[in-house]
């Protein structure tokens, strides 16, 4: 599953399509603490977060995440779209709560 597939499941608006948008997601992380995200060694990760800040994207680039889906319908600062474009990272927004998003993604990832 790619981040674009997940965005469909979460009825998310894809604001920026980045370089990794067609990569298969290998790990999902649902954290709001960037310090925790930086401790994880997984590649091709999808980050689900309620935190809407530029640093989320910068952190995502540092750890090689395929992209970020901001949940809880958080309004994004306009700078985030610019940063996502600069770093070529996929950015989407969903109204799902983080918990509901996790459950929905889990269900979608399960083999049919």
């Amino acid at each position, binding site marked *: 599953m790619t981040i674009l597939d997940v965005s469909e499941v979460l009825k998310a608006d894809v604001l920026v399509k980045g370089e990794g948008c067609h990569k298969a997601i290998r790990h999902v992380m649902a954290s709001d603490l960037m*310090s925790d995200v*930086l401790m994880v*060694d997984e590649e091709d990760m999808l980050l689900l977060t309620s*935190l809407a800040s530029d*640093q989320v994207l910068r952190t995502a680039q540092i750890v090689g995440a395929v992209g970020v889906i901001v949940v809880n319908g958080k309004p994004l600062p306009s700078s985030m779209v610019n940063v996502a474009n600069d770093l070529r990272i996929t950015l989407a927004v969903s109204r799902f709560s983080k918990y509901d998003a996790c459950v929905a993604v889990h269900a979608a990832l399960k083999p049919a």
Partner: protein
Amino acid sequence: MSDAPHTSDARPKGEPEPVAESEPLVLLELIQRLKVRDVMTSKLATVPRSATLREVQELMRKKKISGVPVEENGRFFGLVSIDDIIRALVAGTIDEPCSKHMTTKLVVLEDDMPLSFALRYFDRYHYGRFPVLNRDRRLVGIICQRDINRALLVELTQELNRLETSSSQTPGLDGAYSIYVLREFPICKYDFENAGKAANQIKQVLQEKKFQPKVIRRIAVAAYELEINLCVHSDGGVLSWQISNGRAEIIARDAGPGIEDVAWACRDGTSTANEWIRSLGFGAGMGLVNVKRVSDEFEITSKKGSGTTVKSVINIGEPMAT
């Protein structure tokens, strides 16, 4: 938004400092990499406070030196220069103890200062030499222009030999064994708009160089954590990085406020961040722990009230075969 960084140059906020176009990259890298202690003369001829100026003059003549530090058991008191001797000869005070006539208002350098800093002092003060103290304020050497020239000549010759050997072994391989990529980024306090930008740039450069992804990740994480640390926990500072001889070094240097207990700061989950900083996603206190985790070598020096320097070294190994 915030105060200017404490680096001396005025620069648009957040823009990475460009590599000086006028100086060859190798030379620039050398004067950044070399410390004062690598270049100074450490086998010193010194005199105690009781020595007469005549004895100092004798020492200068024998050793062919132009400045003699006055020192007892490593404790530094002052400097006697040739000018002081000449003045004493004219005034007839040549037999008096040097403590009466030595220069005590001195500019001193620290042994772990980069040579680039030291050069600015030579430029600014026009003294022929500077005493060098270590962190415990003990006299460990003296540095003059001749020392710098000699050291640069030696280092440049060595680098030239290294470059020639490595390029002859594998034609076309631009790897970690050449000296290149030396950059400094000024980081401003609480400049959240730009926080992390430097680390992002570093990662982009690394990806172009085709190093192993796991190594790139570690360097990027170390740089990012150190950058955020500078932004959130210091009054601003400089993040610098360089790659040479199979090693990536990332150094974060700030001028305050210093860490009172370095061991405490390096523990899991400790933080001095306030609520506002936490709400932006920072300050959970894992930063230095994480830097240590990804580093092959980790060094932190800090004094409460003065600056902190954190250094992370990551071995790069062989670049990926193209």
